[in-house]
């Protein structure tokens, strides 16, 4: 049975993968998807540390007032990851993910904005100083390198 700490470890792991994928613009679909998976683990650490619910339960819970800030950023991230994973056109009208979201937009919008806001809100709600610090520190290390 996973714990709150396990979910945060997985979220940090996914953030590290996002950090690597961002170096290769061709993988902006997987960058978005991995950023979404990181967000899923963050949400599960807060809401369901002991078990993974179905998507519907997770999302309906996120829509309540207390978690609304997270949902406002989780939903666009989820939406984009579903486009990345499932939008497939066999009629010769191919939809390329990089035409939908460029590598730079994935970094700026999906990671630096939406995932960042999820991390910030989650840090306040997680009720564990150590995990909260780890979350913010990993995000800063991966995506906000210190300025010289």
């Amino acid at each position, binding site marked *: 049975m996973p714990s709150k700490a396990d979910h945060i470890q997985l979220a940090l792991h996914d953030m590290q993968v996002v950090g690597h994928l961002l170096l290769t613009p061709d993988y902006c679909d997987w960058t978005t998807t991995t950023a979404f998976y990181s967000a899923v683990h963050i949400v599960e650490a807060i809401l369901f540390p002991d078990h993974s619910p179905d998507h519907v339960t997770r999302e*309906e819970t996120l829509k309540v007032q207390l978690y609304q800030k997270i*949902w406002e950023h989780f939903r*666009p991230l989820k939406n*984009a990851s579903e486009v990345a994973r499932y*939008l497939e*056109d066999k*009629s010769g*009208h191919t939809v390329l993910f990089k035409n939908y979201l460029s590598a730079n937009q994935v970094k700026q919008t999906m990671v630096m904005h939406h995932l960042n806001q999820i991390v910030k809100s989650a840090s306040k709600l997680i009720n564990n100083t150590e995990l909260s610090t780890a979350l913010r520190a990993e995000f800063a290390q991966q995506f906000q390198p210190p300025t010289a």
Partner: protein
Amino acid sequence: MCAVAQQGVYHLNWSEKEQQVVIEPSDHSKFVMTMEEVIEACRIYSKEQRLCFQVQFTDLLNHLGAWAYAHREKIAKTFLTLRESRLLFLVVTQGKAYDDEFESELTTLDLEVAHSDGFSGISLSVQSLPNCGPHAYASFCKPGATIQYGGMSAK
């Protein structure tokens, strides 16, 4: 009177319709009914729930239609379908590029429906897709359970 199944489920059976059932809710009131009356009460409740859903569903159709119309400049196609045991409001945008402002408005709509007393019996999710062909958006629609909104073309 009533058998308790292995999973802890009480079975109330019509064959015991004369049998009395005592129901004690948390407010300390007490209902003494025959099994037949309990079954009738369930039928009424179920019918009321269906009626309530029908009213809310009609309101939702209108609400989503009005939203889509207000955003018609950015929308190519709009559907209401079923996905993962709930309703899905699926919007195919005019553009092929991600639009953060549009996504934010879609999230606002989603929260508005989720928090509205008028849609309390409805579970809805929203999804946008960039402009794509029928093969692409059809994979997000449940066959036989999809309504397409029409007459909203901005052109």
